[in-house]
């Protein structure tokens, strides 16, 4: 009896010893996990690997041509930015009010601002750090775009820009279009009046960058942190 007890304790101790380091040292192997307690279940959770499918992913593409419930996109203008004639719609197919604009501003700050910057000049953080060429909204070509085309670019991407159809639902995309239009409008409305201001601002930006060496001007930071003051007003 006594001997068996001792033996068991020894077995336990040697097990712990043989399993390697107890605490404090690094290992490339995953930690020992004695009580699995349903931590890993034989079911498929989102974004997990699956050995069943040849691409190793458990998430599948919907079958082309299928229509989910609530996924009937009969209003082509709303879902694609193109009318029945396959041409881009000239105007946003949803009513635009202050709520939509505010929603558009929020989404813009989240998804667009890193490249396009708060003013839409294409001088966002990625441009500043990675020199990623980004289009300015205030160039003639983009000013001439119909609303539907801007929507299409957000949806499917253009050039280096990836499509944002997945993270941004269509209504939010239109809200962003409305906000971008608002940015453009404000700029052109005050084009003459604030041209000098803008230049000053750019100069001060450069100065700030030179001194602090880390890009983003204070005003854009305000916008980036989801702050209350819309970037347009900072000018």
């Amino acid at each position, binding site marked *: *009896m006594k001997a*068996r*007890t001792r033996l*068991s*304790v020894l*077995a*336990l101790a040697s*097990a*712990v010893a*043989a*399993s390697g380091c107890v605490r404090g040292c690094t290992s490339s*192997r*995953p*930690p*020992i*996990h*004695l009580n*699995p*307690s*349903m*931590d*890993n*279940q*034989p*079911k*498929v*959770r*989102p*974004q*997990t*690997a*699956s*050995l*069943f499918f040849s691409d*190793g*992913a*458990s*998430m*599948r*593409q*919907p*079958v*082309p*041509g*299928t*229509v*989910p*419930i*609530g*996924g*009937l*996109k*009969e209003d082509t203008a709303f879902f694609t930015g193109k009318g029945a004639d396959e041409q881009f719609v000239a105007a946003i197919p949803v009513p635009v009010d202050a709520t939509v604009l505010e929603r558009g501003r929020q989404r813009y700050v989240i998804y667009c601002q890193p490249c396009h910057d708060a003013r839409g000049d294409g001088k966002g953080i990625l441009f500043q750090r990675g020199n990623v060429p980004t289009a300015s909204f205030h160039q003639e070509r983009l000013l001439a775009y119909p609303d539907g085309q801007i929507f299409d670019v957000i949806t499917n991407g253009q050039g280096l820009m990836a499509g944002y*159809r*997945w*993270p941004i*639902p269509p209504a939010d995309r239109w809200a962003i279009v409305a906000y971008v239009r608002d940015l453009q409008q404000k700029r052109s409305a005050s084009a003459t009046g604030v041209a000098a201001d803008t230049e000053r601002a750019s100069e001060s930006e450069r100065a700030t960058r030179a001194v602090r060496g880390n890009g983003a001007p204070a005003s854009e930071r305000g916008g980036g942190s989801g702050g209350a003051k819309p970037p347009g007003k900072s000018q």
Partner: protein
Amino acid sequence: MPPVTPTYWRSLAQLEERAESRAFIEREFPEGASELPEGITRRDMMMLLGASLSLAGLAGCRRPVEEIVPYVTAPEEIVPGIPRYYATTMPFRRSAYGLIVESHEGRPTKVEGNPSHPSTLGASSTRVQASVLGLYDPDRSQSITLRGERKSWSDLVTAWGSLSEAHASDGGASLGILSESFSSPTLARLATELRARYPKLQWATYDAVSDENRLAGLRQATGRDVDLMLRFDRASVILALDADPLLTDPEMIRHARGFADGRRAGATGGVMNRLYAVEGVYSLTGAMADHRLRLESRQIALFVSALAARLAPPVGGGASVPGPDVPGLDARWIDALAKDLLANRGKGLIVAGERQPPAVHAAVCALNNHLGNTGKTVSYFETKDAALPSASSLASLVAAMKAGTIKTLVVLGGNPVFDAPADLDFASAMAKVPQSIALGHSVDETAVKAAWHVPLAHYLESWGDARAVGGTLSVVQPLILPLFGGRSPVEMLGLMVGGQDRPGYDIVRETWNPILGEAEFDKKWNRVLHDGFLAGSELPEVVPALTGQPLAELGRLPAADAGGGLEVVFLPSSSLHDGRFANDGWLQELPDPLTKLTWDNPALVSPKTAESLGVANEDWVRLEYAGRSLELPVWLLPGMSDGVVALTLGYGRSHAGRIGSGVGFDAFKVRSSSAPGFASGARLTRLARRYALSATQEHGSMEGRPVVHESTLTELRSKSAAGEKSAEGAHGAGPPHFSLWKEHTYDKGHQWGMTIDLNACIGCNACMVACQSENNVPVVGKAQVAKGREMQWLRVDRYFSGDPGGNPEMVFQPVPCMHCEDAPCEQVCPVAATVHDGQGLNVMVYNRCIGTRYCSNNCPYKVRRFNFFNFTKDTPDILKLAMNPDVTVRARGVMEKCTYCTQRINRVKIDAKLAGRELRDGDVKTACQQACPASAIEFGDLRDESSRVVKAKADPRNYSLLEELNTKPRTTYLAKVRNPNPDLQHAPGDAGTRHPA
């Protein structure tokens, strides 16, 4: 037979039957636990266990490395973790079930009925619920094969190219096609085009379980090909003749809904329908009947003649013989029935079973017509876009195959080697055909005999279309690309017609082009895909004129040969149907609604027959009939006609897969083309062996306490007039309850509750499979079921009442967790693993559970299920896809039970919060409630005065199960109400089913 991999579904493949259960159990216990030497103390054991555990840790108890695998190209609008829903259609024989399928990141996981589709009305059935497991069946065939060798689809396309040229030269005279019956515009179009290309081809349509007799009967009566649609919701008096419209009929969902509506209406003050059943084998319809008459199938024709004589003036002589010549039948019964039917002209409904000969169906059609029921309770439609089943077409195809005139045989689905009539000997006929191509779900009996085998695409992975009952057009929309590169019959026929490999999507759209019209086709097509069906596509009802003299024909049927031994009756399996679902573990383990047997299909006989034959339950017998014999066990089913032995089809498959192969006994071996339904002349001999069967009912025993409350309509009416609570009686008069416990108030937030209307419940088990699918309930195998370890959270108890040797009544009672407010389970849990939440749910915290099973011991309703083994340990990767990601997959040693679908409650609450609104009544549907074809289950917030569940609980029939225990269950029942004919109250013996209590 595929190799049995021990790591595959170990709990099933190894457990079912084969006496290895002992070895399995020893392997399943942790090392050292099951092989303890004698006389060891508990303390020693704990230490040894500890050592073995930490040693196991050395071997591989490291936390598995998890990888995040996002979409490379993320599809629009899929948010990981948020399910999407698609409308689609499940074709089944000539029916089409409109469905809504839940898809998690592009993987279908759960099937529900489509509320706006006329065939399902939002409900479903066992086979619909279980169909999703068929998609993820690990034994599905994975590749095209030519004599067992892997080939590609392009090889087949090439091979067909040369075959098609050869056949085109002789007009297809040596080409044979065998299909199952279908009702599909695309398949019908392709079939027509194929016939145009090969005018001489032989096309056979065969269903092992078919409604061929009914179609033939209607053709006899009306002279045209029509199909019928039964409208139980409009019927006040229903007569089922050897029929089971509430369970095995493909349209059972609609029937059950209509029937239950009629029952419910009666219980709440309206007109209650009255169901008469005349049958030899106890069916679910018989169990629901207010009056059930035991009569062998062979006597039904005589019964119809006798009834016709009372209902109709004799037409063309013949059938004017009055009733009493039906042996053993009290004339008063049939008189009362005839009176009831005549008093309810236009509101009566007579339905004959698929087994009955065409003459009976023709006569029933004439009687329905005579009673003015046509167009009211029974509607007729042209059979459009359909291939109608015809056993004779199979017989002539087999004759041609045997004669060697068929050079190429294409089997477009179905399993004729298994289920063709035994006298045709399809397998040897197939051996004479040089080239055969068989589409099949798995490498089944037919596939191993065929040269080419093509994996059949599941309906959830293929494009197709179907016409539902009444003609509604629906599209079969895939939820996922074929897992194993399977092809649909549409694509196979498309190849044969056009010689090219065309995607099913294009072929189906081509059919729908003229249906929807060129203009704005895409828009209309997408609308159909979105809705699941084409609105307004119902076929016009036809009112067929009677051309023949069906009642006179009936008189000319050969007299039943009553003296020739036992009558053998072939029943479709309520779960496996004709065997096509044999590899579906959920369905195999689903207890038969009547016998409560799992994993087997014994011969069923009545207790009196058993007594006269000297056999008892589980005795091994030899059944001899028409020169063939079958050995199988026997099971006693009270309420069957004496002198009848019933065989259930669909079991005993040799090549079903790891789940279904070798389970049960193949009744097709004794089923001939001359008598596919029933026949006299069977002989049953007891052999020396015994065979263990696994039934679930004993384990659900309520120890004789009156748990199902029942009354008659007249009693209910008189009581409600007197303001009494009808559910009282058994224990209502006791002293007032007081509680030992501090009572909770439950006056905040949502307080969930459920009612189950026993008056509507037909006992079909759809809820059980729905629960299994929703809640990742494991399948445990026959041996574990025999030990009472089945895991279904919801069980349907069946009770007999009355004389077991005679004609007892049957009642059903679904029993999920009662979610008692003073739950006995919670009071005994040492680790607080089962507790109450603020919404009144009795919840299980799986991680806390240490498996003492005190809770199960203390549960008066016995609704708790314990994971004796790691039933899901070696789940193959493909079956992981079938699991509901929102529900924990439990491990060994953990107790589990009904949660009121807490994951659904939470999902809906989150959705409502995001949408900024309050929960509405009906937002939360539990899986059982949603599946129930009879709408017997209501679920909702008890604090919402306007909710349906509160209204149901206000019904005077409402009662709690074992109320005297004062557990205050949240799940309550509404008492069953029968509606007996007052004229039959005192009819003796078999004639009336009411027995003095």
